Structures are given as C-alpha cells and as structure tokens.
C-alpha cells in the first residue's frame, strides 16, 4: 500500500538532514527583476486589486498634485509646503513600490521554480498507437486523454499516463531528484503511473495518456508556484474583508476629521489628512498579504509536493486528525522475515519448506525476505514452478500462496484467515498456534501463519521497525492539538504494541480499505478536519473524503485524481511536514496582521497632536517629536520602511513551534502584538531625530 523505503527528510524550519531535491531553481537576477516588476505593478489596473495599497497610490497622486500647487484645496498655513508635500508624495510612492517589491520577489521565486519545472517539460515526438496497431509519430502537445502511446529506452515520456503493457525502468530524477531508476509495470498499485518529462532508461512501455496537454501534474504545479492563476483562499478572503473594513472605518474617520478640526479652530491640510489615513490603514499586512500566500505555495513546492489549490495548503494548517498507514509511514515498511516458529509438532525445516513454497511467486519485500530465510535454512523448491499457480494477496482474503502442480495448496497470511482456510479444508487447529501468534504480536512483529492444505505448519515472524524520531514528531503534533490515528491490517496485539511504541493517539487494527473512509467520516462528523495519505485505487474514496488527501506519485491515477495533493517523492511521512507548513502559513499571516494593526497606536500618537496642535493637545506628543512636520514624515517613513523590513519574514514564514493554539496565540500577541506597539515608538523617535539633525523638517 505504501512506499517501503525510508528517506531522510527536511522539516520546514529544522535542519536539512539531506537535500530533498527539487529541480534546480535559478534565482540569478531575481531582485533586479523584482525591482523592475515593482514599477510595472504601479499600473492602476494592478493596484486596484489591492484595496489598501490602491488608497495609498491615490494618496500619492493627490500629494504629488499638492507638491506642485500647495494651495490647490485652499489656503494652508506654514512654510516650505511644496517641499513638505513632495516629501510625503515620495514616501507614499515608495510605500507602494515596497509593497509591489514584496509581491514581485515572492512571484519571482515562484516563477524561477516554475521555469525549472518547465525545463523538465519539452515538446517531444510521441509514438502514438493507432487503433489498427500501427505507430504514428506526433507532437506531444497533440496527445489527448485516452490516447495510447509507446515509449522505448531513451525516450522522454511525453505526457502523464498509466502503464497498460510492458515493464521498464524509468528515471524520475527530473521531478523527484531521486537518481535511482523506478520500475514501472501495469496493474500495480505502486508502479503503474508515469509522469510526463521523466525518461525511460530500459525496455519499453505502452501508456494510456491520462491528462490533456497543459493539465498534467507538472502543469498544475507550475501554475500554482507562479501564482498567476492563484485564487484567494478562504483565509485570505476573510483577511481581505477585515483590511477593507478597517480601511473603510479610517477613511470615514479621516474624511470627517476636518469638521472637528475646524470646530476647535485647528487648520488641517489635505496632505496631512492623507498622511494620517495612510498611517492608520493596515499598509504593512496589505502590502505583504499576497507575498505571504505565494511564499506558502513556494514552500510546498520546495517539498516536492504538487498542491492542486492554495486552499488545500491552508487546510493543512487547520488539520485536527491525521489518519496514517502503519507500514511505510510509522514503520520502515520493508518488514523482513526474522524467524520461523513451528507448531503442531512440525520441525523448523518443514515450516521453511512450506513457507518457501507459499512465497515463490511473492514479489513483495516481505515475500522475498521469507524466501531468503527459508533458503538459508536449507529449503528448496521441490516442484515445477511453471506448472504451479501463484495466488496474489488481496485485502479480502488477506492471504497469498501457491497452488502446487500436484493439487496441493500452500498459503501464508493473517492468522485468522489461515485458520479459516484450514477449517474450510477440514483441518484441525494446533493448540500451540495461539501462543506463537501472541509471542510475535507482543514483540510488535507481524505474525503470518503458514499452512499446506488442512495442516498449519507454523508462524513466520515479520519484524517491523518503527522509524527513528517518529515518536517525537507525534509528540509535537499532539502539542499542536493534532490527533493521530494509525490504520493497520495487523492484529490488535501487534497494532497496540506499535501504537504504544510510536506514540499514536489511536489505532485501528485489522483495518480494511473501507475502514479508512469510516474513520474519516466519523472524525468529520465531530467537526474535525482530517488529512490522510494513500496510493492505491482503493484509497481513492477516502482521499476524496479527507479534507487534505495526499497521494503518492508512485500510486495509481485514481488515487492521484482523488487527492488534492500529490507527493512527488512518494514519502507518506511528508504529511506531517505539510501540516507544519500549513500552520506556519496561517501563523505568519496572523502574526503580521497583529503587528500591522498594533503599529497604528504609535503612528496615531505621532500625527494626531499635529492635527489638533492649536487645540492645545501637545501633551499627546508623548514621543517628544521635534516638530509637526518631522512627526508626520517620521511616521510615514517608518510606515514605508517596515514593509521591506518584513519581506524576509513574509517569505520564510514565522518560526514554527509545536505549541497548542492557546500557547501560540499568547506567544504571538506578546511578540507581534506588544512588539508591534513598542517597536514603532522607538523607530519613529529615531527617524525624527535623524530628520531634525539633517534639517529636513
């Protein structure tokens, strides 16, 4: 069901154990392009998409007009008004440019990644199979879903598809970075799908195309990281509404302020009103909002995961239950035969002989390890393999084995299933079978019973190894309030031992594929958001049901289409990293919003005393700013500079800590709330001192 290999992993904020390769991203000239792009984005048709920055842009134009004619809106007291208004216009202009720059850098990084991915795709000549069996050479762009193509060694696979004939090795390093070739064959849950842009390095395959041009997985990933067709996520929409409401409130307040100022005989210029409006509206988060979203997608792509929408990435951050397969996710996956335990007065050699006969057609790592152990104990195949028939494992029978040429039947599988098989053949159950079964289960291993016809010979002990560090990761998830549920086909005793060792919150033993969907529905009925991984066709309904379904790239097409994310490295453990990335995205957005709103307090105390100077409220000038003009300029300069200062934080994300929601909230309020109140007071005062010292105002 899952990829048995264990790979080193990279955590979003942690050290990089081993470089998880993504196609090489060329970031040369990124900042030059971003600077150019930030001026191109001054186009009002682009600016109008960001309400906060659009208002700043309109304010820039008005103050620029006031720099040309300071008395445009009537007489205003004061000297050097032209210079003062020009300075305000320049600062506001750079506020818009800095916000554009933040977005352009994030988009530039995404575009660089998309270009690297695009380089793995190229128009190739495909060998299309016609209905009469002949081959026609066509451009890969003309291929459509359902077409059949043939690829031979040396060819680049022209489109995403499913293998329907042939066995071949495929080099998937272009998308996964993994240099070891992958075996592809038809009818297999883990090896039947191929990705366009990968290269076949031996033999040949017949493939049914499963995606129209431009709609393959790589194309989806390119569109997402480029951010070109990125639609807003629910969280972004909610934040946009909040920012618009705040903007509306401050717009109304500032528009009505001259009336109050006039009442207290305090003349106020339009330029200062615009400065106050810009200082009060949440320009910091308004300028960084899209950059945070794009950077979040970028981080997911860096982890070699294709997300079909930003909504899926964000949902990762809200996940409350993780449904995980035991094999490959919690344990290393390649369970190996450790020991044969004879029962029913049979010798160990007899068990080895029957186990070998039952495993000769079994190509799984477990089957091969049984063959190796049996051969080590001297067992040999004593029948004609060409006349025997292999019986494949199925989720229903939970057994596999061989029908021998002499009519005999050897089977190995789950103990209950083998017991049922023996009873159905009129056999008796061995009294010492349950003891052997319990012994293996209590060791956390998987017991497989082995029988021939109506006689049980013994138990095979398959040793399961829990992935190192997985317990710590589950502890982290628990602290974050995420519940983990382990699903396994193993018996209850084995499942409980593994669950206890790994530290999962709950487990379901002897699980069938139907149990997965039942668990997800049960959790969702309690109002929880559920994430799961899967790769088989029988996982598809559960992947579609889950709020976040991550399919393995090595899995079937059905699984990939049902899921809303595809892991190109086929590493089920990555689901835990995705939850971390999603939470980091949401925390970053929340933290910067808190900081942006908290900044208002200091800016308010800088500008309000200026407006009501003649009303005698100079005591509000608690920062002791040098002059009315320097107060306005300091607040605006701080307002502009804080945007580029926060770009690195927006792009890399706030450092993630595995804490509960309440602890995170307290921590963020302390750092970004209190910090957002204090930092601008200090920064504005420093800027004011500098302005006064150079005699600018």
């Amino acid at each position, binding site marked *: 069901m899952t990829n048995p290999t264990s790979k080193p992993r990279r955590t979003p904020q942690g050290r990089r154990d081993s470089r998880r390769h993504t196609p090489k991203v060329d970031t040369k000239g990124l900042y030059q392009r971003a600077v150019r792009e930030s001026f191109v984005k001054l186009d009002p048709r682009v600016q*109008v*998409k*960001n*309400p906060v920055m*659009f*208002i700043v842009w*309109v304010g820039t134009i*008005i103050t620029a007009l006031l720099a040309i004619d300071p*008395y*445009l*809106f*009537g*007489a205003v007291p004061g000297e050097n008004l032209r210079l003062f208004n020009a300075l305000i216009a320049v600062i506001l202009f750079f506020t818009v440019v800095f916000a554009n720059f933040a977005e352009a850098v994030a988009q530039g990084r995404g575009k660089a990644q998309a270009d690297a991915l695009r380089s793995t795709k190229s128009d190739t000549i495909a060998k299309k199979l016609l209905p009469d069996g002949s081959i026609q050479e066509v451009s890969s762009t003309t291929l459509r879903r359902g077409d059949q193509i043939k690829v031979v060694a040396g060819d680049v696979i022209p489109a995403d598809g499913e293998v329907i004939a042939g066995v071949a090795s495929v080099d998937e390093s272009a998308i996964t970075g993994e240099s070891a070739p992958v075996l592809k064959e038809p009818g297999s849950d883990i090896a039947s799908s191929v990705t366009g842009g990968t290269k076949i390095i031996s033999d040949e395959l017949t493939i049914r195309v499963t995606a129209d041009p431009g709609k393959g997985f790589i194309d989806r990933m390119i569109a997402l990281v480029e951010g070109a067709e990125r*639609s*807003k996520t629910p969280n972004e*929409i909610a934040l*946009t*509404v909040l920012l*618009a*409401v705040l*903007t*509306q409130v401050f*717009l*109304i307040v500032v*528009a009505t302020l001259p009336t109050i100022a006039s009442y207290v005989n305090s003349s106020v210029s*339009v330029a200062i009103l615009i400065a106050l409006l810009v200082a009060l509206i949440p320009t910091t988060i308004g300028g960084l909002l899209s950059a945070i979203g794009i950077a979040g997608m970028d981080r997911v792509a860096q982890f070699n995961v294709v997300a079909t929408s930003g909504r899926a990435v964000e949902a990762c951050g809200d996940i409350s239950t993780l449904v995980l397969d035991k094999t490959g996710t919690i344990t290393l996956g390649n369970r190996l035969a450790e020991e044969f335990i004879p029962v029913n007065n049979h010798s160990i050699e007899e068990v080895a002989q029957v186990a070998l006969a039952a495993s000769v057609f079994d190509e799984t790592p477990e089957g091969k390890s049984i063959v190796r152990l049996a051969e080590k104990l001297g067992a040999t195949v004593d029948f004609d393999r060409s006349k025997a028939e292999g019986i494949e494992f199925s989720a229903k029978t939970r057994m596999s084995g061989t029908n021998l040429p002499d009519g005999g039947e050897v089977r190995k599988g789950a103990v209950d299933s083998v017991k049922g098989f023996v009873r159905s053949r009129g056999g008796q159950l061995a009294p010492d079978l349950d003891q052997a079964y319990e012994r293996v289960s209590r060791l956390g291993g998987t017991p497989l019973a082995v029988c021939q016809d109506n006689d049980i010979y013994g138990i095979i002990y398959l040793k399961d190894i829990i992935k190192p560090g997985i317990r710590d990761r589950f502890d982290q998830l628990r602290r974050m309030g995420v519940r983990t549920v382990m699903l396994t086909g193993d018996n209850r005793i084995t499942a409980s031992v593994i669950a206890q060792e790994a530290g999962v919150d709950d487990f379901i033993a002897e699980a069938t594929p139907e149990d997965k969907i039942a668990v997800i529905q049960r959790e969702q009925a309690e109002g929880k958001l559920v994430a799961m991984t899967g790769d088989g066709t029988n996982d598809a309904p559960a992947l579609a049901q889950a709020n976040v379904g991550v399919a393995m790239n090595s899995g079937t097409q059905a699984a990939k289409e049902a899921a809303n994310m595809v892991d190109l490295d086929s590493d089920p453990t990555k689901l835990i990293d995705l939850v971390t990335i999603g939470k980091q995205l949401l925390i970053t957005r929340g933290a910067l919003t808190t900081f942006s709103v908290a900044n208002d307090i200091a800016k308010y105390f800088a500008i309000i005393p200026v407006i009501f100077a003649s009303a005698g409220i100079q005591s509000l000038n608690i920062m002791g700013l040098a002059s009315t003009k320097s107060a306005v300029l300091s607040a605006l300069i701080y307002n502009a500079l804080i945007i580029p200062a926060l770009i690195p934080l927006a792009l890399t994300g706030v450092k993630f800590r595995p804490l509960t929601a309440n602890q995170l909230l307290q921590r963020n309020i302390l750092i970004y709330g209190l910090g957002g109140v204090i930092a601008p007071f200090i920064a504005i005062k420093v800027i004011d001192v500098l302005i006064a010292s150079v005699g600018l105002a």
Partner: protein
Amino acid sequence: MKRIDLFDEFLPRDFKEGVELLKAQWRRRPLPIQLFLLMCLNLIIAPAVYAAAGTEIDRRSAWALGMLGLLTLGLSIYVFVVIFQPEHF
C-alpha cells in the same frame, strides 16, 4: 397607439450624436467617460462648496474640493465593493 421617439423628435441632432458617442465609448473605455461625467457632476457640487465656504477659498479650490469629495466617495464605494465581493480582489 403610435410611438413617438421624443429623443429623435425634439433633441438637437448634435446632442443626440454626442450621447450616442458617449454610449459607444462607455462600452469600449468606461473610465475616461466616468471621469468626464464626474467632472460634469462637479459643475453642480463646486458652486455649492464655493457658496458654503464664503470668501475663504477661490473658485479653483472649490472645484478641487468638489473633486476631492467625489473621489473620497468613490473610494468609499470601492472599499464597500471589496467588503462585499472580496474574491474579486
């Protein structure tokens, strides 16, 4: 009953052509036409501002303040659109 097109019947031909041109241009490029109509509207607002302000401001400032008021109103409507249709922004 016979329908009489009052628009065709009584309005001067130049005015009718002007309106047709505005309608055609509105479809192609609405923004300049909207700005033009706003400035026309300001011809009503500016004298009111001038009258209300007395001798404190001149005619030019009254016209600029009228435009500023309309712009503020426009921005307020735009922000309301963002609040009610955020997915378009």
